């Protein structure tokens, strides 16, 4: 909780790191000033790309005391405005799960190697990034918390599987080793409330620690203040839930 007598400072910049297949990719990085140790966060951006909302959100997490890294998952698709790059990726059907896992895993490794980062790092994602965050927390050892905000296609029917998305993330739930926070809108079409139920059943079945918050009057992407789907009341409450969960799981002993 911020108080007005508190010192606050951060450093935020673009950095380069070796991602999947050791490809050099860029990432947006923000950290609180000070010796730490601070917990870390990897942010997995959404379909609209490595955009202004994700850069702002990276700084938001830093302001809340997290050393935060947001890799550009579309780096290999060229450069331009985030919209143009994301449109290119959208048209091609997205990026492969394997490549995303490589980039997210490299981001986790970079954070854990920093001298001012504690051993606890979480992963956060919205939309397709929520799906990728769920997949990452299952497939990459070392995450201590997962925040899945309305990740679509975490549960998938067999006919939805593709060479780029060969396994539904929910099918890896047994491998999950960290607590989960799920934030969902009950008017969402992807994931639907029924798909959220399926995900919850899988977490229950495998005895995982999870906390779901489902909001009435909200659909997909209701944190996005620049889109008409923004829902002020639900977004404010959702952000409070996110930081309460992370403070408990990453800042405790």
């Amino acid at each position: 909780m911020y108080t007005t007598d508190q010192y606050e400072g951060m450093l935020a910049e673009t950095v380069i790191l070796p991602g999947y297949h050791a490809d050099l990719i860029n990432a947006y990085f923000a950290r609180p000033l000070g010796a730490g140790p601070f917990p870390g966060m990897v942010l997995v951006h959404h379909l609209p790309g490595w955009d202004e909302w994700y850069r702002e959100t990276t700084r938001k997490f830093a302001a809340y005391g997290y050393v935060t890294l947001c890799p550009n998952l579309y780096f290999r698709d060229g450069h331009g405005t985030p919209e143009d790059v994301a449109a290119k990726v959208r048209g091609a059907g997205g990026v492969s799960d394997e490549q995303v896992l490589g980039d997210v895993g490299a981001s986790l490794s970079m954070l854990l190697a920093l001298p001012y980062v504690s051993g606890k790092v979480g992963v956060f994602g919205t939309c397709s990034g929520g799906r990728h965050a769920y997949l990452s927390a299952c497939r990459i050892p070392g995450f201590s918390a997962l925040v899945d905000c309305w990740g679509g296609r975490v549960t998938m029917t067999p006919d939805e599987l593709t060479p780029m998305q060969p396994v539904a993330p929910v099918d890896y739930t047994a491998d999950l080793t960290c607590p989960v926070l799920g934030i969902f809108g009950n008017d969402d079409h992807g994931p639907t409330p029924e798909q959220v139920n399926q995900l919850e059943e899988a977490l229950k079945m495998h005895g995982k620690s999870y906390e779901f918050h489902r909001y009435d009057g909200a659909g997909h992407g209701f944190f996005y203040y620049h889109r008409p789907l923004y829902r002020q009341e639900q977004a404010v409450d959702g952000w409070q839930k996110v930081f309460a969960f992370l403070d408990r799981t990453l800042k405790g002993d």
Partner: protein
Amino acid sequence: MCTMIAKQVDVTGSGKAGTAWFKLDQASVSYDHPFDMPLEYALNIDFTNQAGGPAARVAVELDADSARKLVEVIQDVMHQAEVGGFMEAR
């Protein structure tokens, strides 16, 4: 990428972005999140020049009804052109 409903097709044509025309060689059609239209999902068409990089793009975002009407109109116009003998041999 959220819906993964996307297809690409090679095309031949020209597109205009700003004040400049450029050659088009691909169209990407998706039903997914739009960037500008105030909808959760839209029919998105990106006409692109692949060698020109991500910025070589003419973008269209339509609601579902508009997309269906557009398809019908294109089919109708193409049919009239065929019947009228206006198709150019390439």
